[in-house]
């Protein structure tokens, strides 16, 4: 296929005029952003360099009609590395603004709010790193109520709201996202992993560990490949969109059903793909540990760790450390049946 490079100059000018779009033409196509981009690993068709290149050449149809412009999650890992100091997610946002103005819509799916369950508490509003959830007044069953509403142009589908909602009123449809509660539980328990007695409860082998790993935190592709080799009957690795997506109820469930320890791995603070997700994930685990202590359970059984972009082979080390801690829990434990 050949593409005429006549160039839609009006489109280029429109992007340049948008806040954030002013750096569109300074890109010299070095590819640093593409090689940094975490989205690129899951969506090889998404290449920030190419989006900027096409937009800069004025290939407006190609850019606006593609799904790529909606895929950048504005994690800004590329920004500090760009030798031209281009705020790439800012350019993306400018292109999106132009796209919306021209009648293009971002692709779904987005979290759905069950109006019957939503209490309007706004926990999700605070949990959302993108400011995509606002409350709006609605009349439901003759009553004026405040209900959470998701703005699809801002939502990045991280699921932090799903995990945060105390009323379980927000969900991401199962068929549309591999990170719904049901899907995650299914992957945790696949092959009857949660139906065996744990090592601490007298089971065979080593301490059984469930590792909930944020999919962005292990940065090197070869490390992901190595993780497949790590999978054993005593270690279950489940990837999440974000460590903030962890629901404490899931962890308690796993601990009550055969997991000796739960390890949650997120990105390093400041590198989180969803801006504040690591912060939320770590907070949840801290609170959970306190809660467990109050319940008389050893808090050592849960652990939270960060993995920075330049770390390599982190997971084996973290698993080893957690096993050591678990093995130190020498005394017989209170029965897990309490859970």
């Amino acid at each position, binding site marked *: 296929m050949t593409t005429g490079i006549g160039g839609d100059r009006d489109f280029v000018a429109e992007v340049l005029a948008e806040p954030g779009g002013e750096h569109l033409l300074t890109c010299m196509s*070095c590819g*640093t*952003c593409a*090689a940094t981009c975490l989205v*690129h690993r899951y969506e090889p068709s998404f290449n920030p360099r190419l989006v900027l290149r096409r937009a800069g050449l004025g290939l407006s149809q190609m850019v606006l009609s593609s799904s790529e412009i909606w895929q950048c999650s504005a994690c800004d890992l590329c920004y500090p590395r760009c030798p031209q100091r281009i705020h790439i997610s800012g350019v993306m946002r400018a292109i999106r603004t132009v796209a919306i103005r021209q009648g293009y819509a971002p692709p779904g799916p987005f979290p759905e709010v069950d109006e019957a369950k939503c209490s309007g508490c706004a926990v999700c509003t605070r949990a959302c790193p993108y400011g995509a959830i606002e409350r709006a007044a609605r009349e439901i069953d003759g009553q004026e109520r405040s209900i959470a509403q998701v703005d699809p142009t801002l939502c990045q589908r991280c699921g932090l709201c799903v995990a945060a909602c105390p009323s379980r009123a927000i969900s991401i449809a199962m068929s549309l996202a591999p990170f719904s509660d049901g899907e995650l539980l299914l992957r945790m328990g696949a092959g009857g992993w949660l139906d065996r007695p744990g090592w601490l409860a007298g089971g065979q082998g080593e301490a059984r560990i469930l590792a909930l790993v944020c999919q962005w935190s292990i940065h*090197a592709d070869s490390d992901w490949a190595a993780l497949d080799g790590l999978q054993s009957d005593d270690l279950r690795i489940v990837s999440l969109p974000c460590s903030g997506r962890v629901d404490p109820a899931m962890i308690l469930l796993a601990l009550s059903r055969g997991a000796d320890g739960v390890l949650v791995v997120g990105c390093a603070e400041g590198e989180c793909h969803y801006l504040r997700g690591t912060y939320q994930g770590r907070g949840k685990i801290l609170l959970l540990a306190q809660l467990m202590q109050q319940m008389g359970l050893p808090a050592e059984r849960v652990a939270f760790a960060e993995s920075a972009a*330049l*770390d390599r082979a982190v997971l084996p080390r973290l698993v080893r450390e957690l096993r050591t801690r678990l093995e130190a829990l020498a005394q017989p434990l209170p029965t897990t049946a309490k859970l």
Partner: protein
Amino acid sequence: MVDAARHPQVEIVSYAEVERVDGFIGNFRAQVTQKPRYVKTDLCTGCGECAAVCPIEVPNEFEIDLAPRKAIDVPHGQAVPLIYAVDLDSCIQCYQCVTACGKRDAIDFGMEPETRELEIGSIIMATGFDSFDPSVIPEYGYGRYPNVITAMELERLANSAGPTVGKLIRPSDGRTPQSMAIIQCVGSRDKRYYEYCSGFCCMYAIKNAVLLKQANHDMELTIFYMDIRTPSKGYEEFYNRARELGVRFIHGRPAQITEDPLTCNLHVVAEDQELGQVIELEVEMVTLSSAAIPKRDTEVMSSRLALARSPSGFFMEYHPKLRPVDSPTDGIFLAGAAQGPKDIPASVAQGSAAASRAARVLSKDTWEIEPVIARVHPELCISAQGKRCGLCAQACPYGAITVEVGQPAVITPAKCHGCGGCAAECPQSAITQDHFTDAQIVAQLDALLTDRPEEKIIAFMCHWCSYGGADNAGTSHFEYPSSSRGLRVMCSARMDEDFVLEAFRRGAGMVLVSGCHPQDCHYISGQQVAAKRFDRMARLLQRMGINPERFRLEWISAAEGDKYARVITEMDAKLKSFDREALIAETRAARPAIGKRLARWKASPLMVDLLSPAEAEEVLA
């Protein structure tokens, strides 16, 4: 270097610091402090027996800390002059060296720094460059991963006179690597650090790759680049040869390097743009082609020698195309990477050119300068009356003016280039510029505005750019209204705001002040002085009761005849849009205020002769 050392008319002053340089072309005086070597220059034979017995070993700077040196040593084997020096910071003063030196008696721990004064005709700055420290780029891991090294370190590790006698080894385990990635543009072409292209890294990276490939054909060499720049004679052929030898070139700037904690191997992640996909390459060693950056004491030296620096930080040349070897200060010349990153052939060429430019000065008894220079009238200078001023010295781009409180300002004629910025800045009108005196300019205004001044546009133009632009408009036959009247001065810095006010006082309809574009100024920073001054103009005019729309400031280059024509056309249209009678009334109303402001200037002894009787009366009132 050895030739220079042997030459009867060349004196090498090494291990010394230039503390101060005064004077001007042909008559410089430099104060130089000779640091103590603790070894007598005339007695040391360079035999090295002292170093052999010295028990202290410290990292060797010449080998980029990859090898040891002794506390008494020479910088490197080929050092000229070959005289040993004691590094007192690491010396334990065991005096074994003194014993080893024996009868030669060259070592003297009682030496003190010595200050000398040198009389110099011309100066060549050839202070070289520093190498960028890539440890500030976290994603490349330099300083954290032992097997990530810089190109300078590779030079030493692969050099047969280096610490490994030419055997390339990995710092982590001493093994010879079978694969290496070379990363280009580390710190250069990078707005986070140095925006410019270092220029010669492409060639040395290819050279290193070829040398390593020739030494070990099985070695995998991969060069990651943004653009390969091989523009000189024979360079592209060399690049092709590297490709033929099997050196791999990948178009893509690596985003990160991670280290395998067990093997210390490195994983380089980059987008291969020809493949259009992100690749991860495992190598045993990585070399970073780090930027050539200004020598760290460039700033100090630039203030000691009053030399300007380019935005990149290197010493600035007089003119990038026409006088690339001269510094803005006459008699000081630039050679090599001190002026900007360059490779060996270019450095040699510039060095030879600088030498011949310098010899041109030395071969003459007298030196002709341009007649347009500035003069101080000591009786008018307020510095002589004990007041702090110094505005003229601040405006001078050449450091030609010295001001000491209690003394009148002094201009060194040989350093003055005649921009006239000082004359315009002086609040006392105590400085005149020969051939462009205030009186001459007022006389020109007088002539230009005799007849129907309200229909005229007075265009102040700088000699080098705007006047050329106006000329270009004429020779290109661009049409523009005939209402403009040009008034040429050497630089926009010469354009005093008093001239503008005087033009309005005399009834001019519009005034244009035009100069070079900021980076094109013939007088380095004259345009900036003017820009700063005329930023205030609109407010001043408003205060005087003149509509600020009657004034315009434009930067017009010598090639922009079309811009000159456009500006004049626009100004003419604006002038015609004003009501003529109202304009005259505005001028008349503003005259007393302007006259009052200009009274002291007009009353100065340099101007008063020029006043008509009517004007003298107005000034006195």
